[in-house]
């Protein structure tokens, strides 16, 4: 018996499934065409989970709903190895860029499934299809019984019906699902297909009948809530296009952390209006904390590039005011960002950094440029060779320790793993280390004005 189910009532665990290529093959037609299903049958998911977590004594009851996908097809000729020939080419449909939500009924075994794992599912796995990343998004969901349209395919058996809380099948849509045993199909089982109207656990139901390939409407558009949120903030409309384009370019190529460094560097330049830079920084920080821009900087970049147009967009297209907030994301730093953070942290902890009161101006620019131009080794060499010249670039009143600090910076960067191979980013890191003990004149004027 399923202990968990017995003790705590029925609960589901929800996973988010993503796959680049997925082929849930329907039956071959006329020996030349293999259509791909636009649904995830319960038996397919069950089979995949069983082979991932084998346990002959336990059942897996699971359903999945495709949220997003595109349909594509390919033609290939399977090889008959015995005859050493290729058979007639088959056109196979498959899905790309797939996102789905999977619900697994919890029992004493399925409750032990990890929060993150890779599932091999569907057909053509030998050709690289069906590698699906599973990530738990919600645990112990208590189902509610209600009426609705089934969005998946499940065997019409008492076991499955009981497991998924199916009480009353009001309008069945029947079909047959293959039941495999030891890798080969042994028989076809009568099954309930999508759009069956029934009373069951709400996690297996849709409010309206399923349709294939529906257009992305506003409520399914992942970017729309972000644009609406940005529009609410009333972003400035006169941000310089060259700055937006440069930031967007950096963001798309190197991600949020580097874009932030880049902007930080811009704010120290007299050519940029600090207020404008701050505005962009604020919006970048926002994009980083919401889905789907958080883990897709390219998307974030395409919004940043058009930041000036957001108000016009709001006026022209009038998005619904009651639009939901974009889902929050926990920004996880990538390896390069982690490294940058640790480099900066270790430099800032160093004695030399502590001792230098001011670390800014020409010296930092020269050091950063030298690193970007010559790399760590040569910069150190030059630092040693022409220590006098370096010293000369130090501002009046600055202790000479600044050269030691420069040496430490270069050495710390060089000892890291990724930064030496990204000298331009290292340049930004060095520039970001500038210290400013006293607020500049411009700053105080601005503050007064703001007050």
């Amino acid at each position, binding site marked *: 018996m399923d202990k968990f189910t017995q003790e705590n009532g029925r609960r589901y665990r929800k996973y988010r499934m993503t796959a680049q290529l997925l082929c849930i093959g329907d039956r071959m037609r006329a020996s030349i065409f293999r259509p791909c299903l636009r649904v995830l049958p319960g038996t397919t998911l069950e089979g995949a989970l069983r082979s991932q977590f084998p346990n002959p004594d336990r059942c897996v009851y699971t359903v999945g709903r495709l949220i997003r996908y595109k349909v594509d097809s390919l033609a290939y000729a399977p090889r008959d190895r015995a005859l050493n020939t290729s058979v007639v080419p088959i056109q196979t449909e498959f899905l790309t860029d797939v996102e789905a939500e999977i619900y697994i009924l919890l029992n004493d075994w399925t409750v032990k499934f990890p929060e993150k794992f890779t599932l091999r599912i569907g057909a053509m796995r030998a050709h690289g299809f069906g590698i699906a990343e599973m990530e738990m998004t919600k645990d112990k969901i208590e189902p509610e019984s209600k009426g609705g349209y089934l969005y998946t395919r499940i065997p019409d058996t008492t076991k499955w019906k009981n497991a998924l809380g199916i009480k009353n099948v009001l309008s069945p849509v029947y079909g047959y699902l293959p039941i495999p045993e030891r890798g080969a199909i042994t*028989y*076809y089982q009568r099954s309930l297909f999508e759009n069956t109207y029934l009373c069951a656990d709400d996690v297996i139901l849709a409010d309206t009948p399923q349709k294939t390939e529906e257009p992305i409407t506003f409520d399914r558009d992942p970017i729309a809530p972000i644009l609406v949120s940005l529009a609410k903030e009333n972003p400035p409309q006169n941000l310089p296009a060259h700055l937006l384009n440069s930031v967007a370019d950096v963001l798309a190529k190197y991600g949020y952390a580097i874009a932030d460094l880049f902007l930080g560097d811009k704010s120290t330049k007299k050519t940029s209006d600090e207020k404008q830079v701050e505005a962009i920084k604020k919006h970048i920080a926002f994009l980083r904390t919401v889905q789907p821009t958080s883990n897709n900087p390219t998307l974030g970049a395409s919004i940043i590039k058009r930041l000036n147009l957001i108000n016009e967009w709001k006026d022209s297209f009038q998005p619904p005011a009651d639009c939901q907030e974009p889902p929050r994301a926990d920004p996880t730093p990538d390896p390069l960002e982690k490294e940058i953070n640790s480099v900066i942290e270790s430099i800032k902890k160093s004695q030399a950094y502590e001792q230098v009161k001011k670390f800014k101006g020409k010296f930092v620019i020269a050091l950063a440029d030298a690193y970007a131009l010559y790399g760590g080794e040569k910069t150190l060499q030059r630092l040693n060779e022409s220590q006098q010249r370096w010293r000369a670039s130090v501002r009046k009143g600055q202790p000479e320790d600044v050269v030691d600090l420069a040496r430490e910076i270069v050495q710390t960067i060089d000892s890291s793993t990724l930064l030496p191979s990204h000298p331009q980013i290292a340049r930004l890191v060095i520039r970001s280390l500038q210290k400013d003990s006293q607020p500049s004149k411009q700053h105080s004027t601005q503050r007064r004005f703001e007050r």
Partner: protein
Amino acid sequence: MPHEIDDPKAEFHDIGKLLNWDALGLKKENEKDPHEFEKCVGDLERWGVELKGSAWRAITRKNEDRRKKNWPDSYAWIFVSFADELAAGYGRKIPENEVKVDPNRHYDCLWRSESTTEDPRLKKPEDLKEMIQFLNKDPSWEEAKEKYGDRWKKRAETARPGLNVTTLLSHSEVTGKLARILARMDWSDIDPRTPWEEVKKQVNKSHRKLTICHYELNFVQKPFRARDLGVFSALKNALNEIESEFPDNVLSRFENQIIAVFESEEARENFEKHIFKRGFFFRKRTQQGMILEIKRHGIANFKEGHWNFHFPQELPEKIELPLCENCQMAQAAKKWPQDCPEVTPEKEEEMTPEDLCEDCFDLRERHQPLRKLPTWREGSVVWLMIHLDIDALRTTLTCLHRCFLQEKAPNIKKRWVKKLEVSYPMLVDFFEDYKNYLKSVHQTLDTLMGQERIEHPMDHLWCIQLNERAEVLDIIEKLYELSLESFPKLLSDSISYPIRHTLSISNPKYPFFQHWRFFQDASEEVEIQLVNSGVARFRMKDSQSILQVITETAKDHRASLHKLSAIATISPALAQLALLEKGEHGLKLDEIESLVKTKQLDLQSARILANLAPKGGKNDG
């Protein structure tokens, strides 16, 4: 059954409305705009009326004395009266004194612009005499329709202005069918001499129920190639046979849809058995209620009924291998083409072997497949399906009728306008025009593309060979013109066009069941699928302006459209933002921008249409 089961001939009950009694000088004093013979002629016998046939029985049903004298034991008057109430338009629900404007005898169509205000009634004494002589012969409905059909069509069921929106013909036909269905019920608990109001009370207390079902017949097969498309000829035959076997039960039939009425559960089951017998399944929604309850809600008003699927028989729990490749719902007992005696060994070699069940094998063997499609080896084909959405039709007509009523009877109380509901005979009028529309589409396609390039498996389904894809845009233009001609008032901003036009373009060998799946899902007014590329969706009323803009834009900015649409596949909102970009890097799609802003077109649709637009002009890519 205790009473006679002869035809009540309820179709004739309102024939008096075809006569202008005032002009004939036969209107009795104190009678306000009557149309009944006995209220006008008075002494019927003096005019040569021979009260013998069923037609006269239906016409004079309201006169109790005459009824008791001539047909004392007949229930026909009850059937005709109830059927008349059931098939009545909205006008009967509004009290007489509510619309105080001069009556309009002519029919005003809600969806067509042209309207004649000419009074269609006969006004000469000779006409009356001729009609009486005709009725004395107790003619059939077909004979009567041949003689007076045109007038029936032009005369409104209700003469009150704003309510004259249903033809007398559709009202009479529906009344006729319903009366025959009612006659099949057991009425032995009611004495036919009972006064009408008493009969109504008794009927209200009884358990007599009418069942009205909306069926959509379908096949379990998933047709792949032309040889499987014989399933359409089988479906067409089945629909024709069912209609001729149950002429009274079938109130309306169009496409693969049937609206049928049943007097009992046995009658419904028997009807459904006949569908299953022919190998088809259906989805159905039902309205059931007492006679007067149905009258209150309106026939075929399936407000809350959702669709239920029904399969031919109890399907087996398990099917052993091999499974039928065509329907995938039964075990394959036959092999194609080996088991087919008509296939020669030479042909057999060309064909791919398939495992089929008895039904699918039989279907392939017996029914005519499509002949032209297999010969179209090059280029593309477009499948066109036209579909009438009855729920959308009801909503649209209700909206139009409300506006029309307010315009013609401005003093009418708002609650009558608010409560307004479309009557079934009005839908019947529409179905008739819809069938004519389908015919005109076929004729136009024939002229435009040539007969040799068209397959026409069903009344609402076509397969057309394309020399170039741009021809699809010509087809849409023609469909728009025909829609404008047939239903001009339905192509408006405020209401939805209930006729869906779905087109799917692919190479000729592309599996048909994929097109079919797309057709089943379509819900927009116009949807065009370019297989492996995407779907364009827009409203029929906008089609002309959209096609114009697209054809112009595609000449020079095809690449920009593709770029924009690629963004739209990720996020339409982001694409809208990109569309606003001006200056050097902007996409320069001003006309598209205005269509997108007004929500007439989305960007994916623009790309698909641009792909269909004729090549030429410089490409900005």
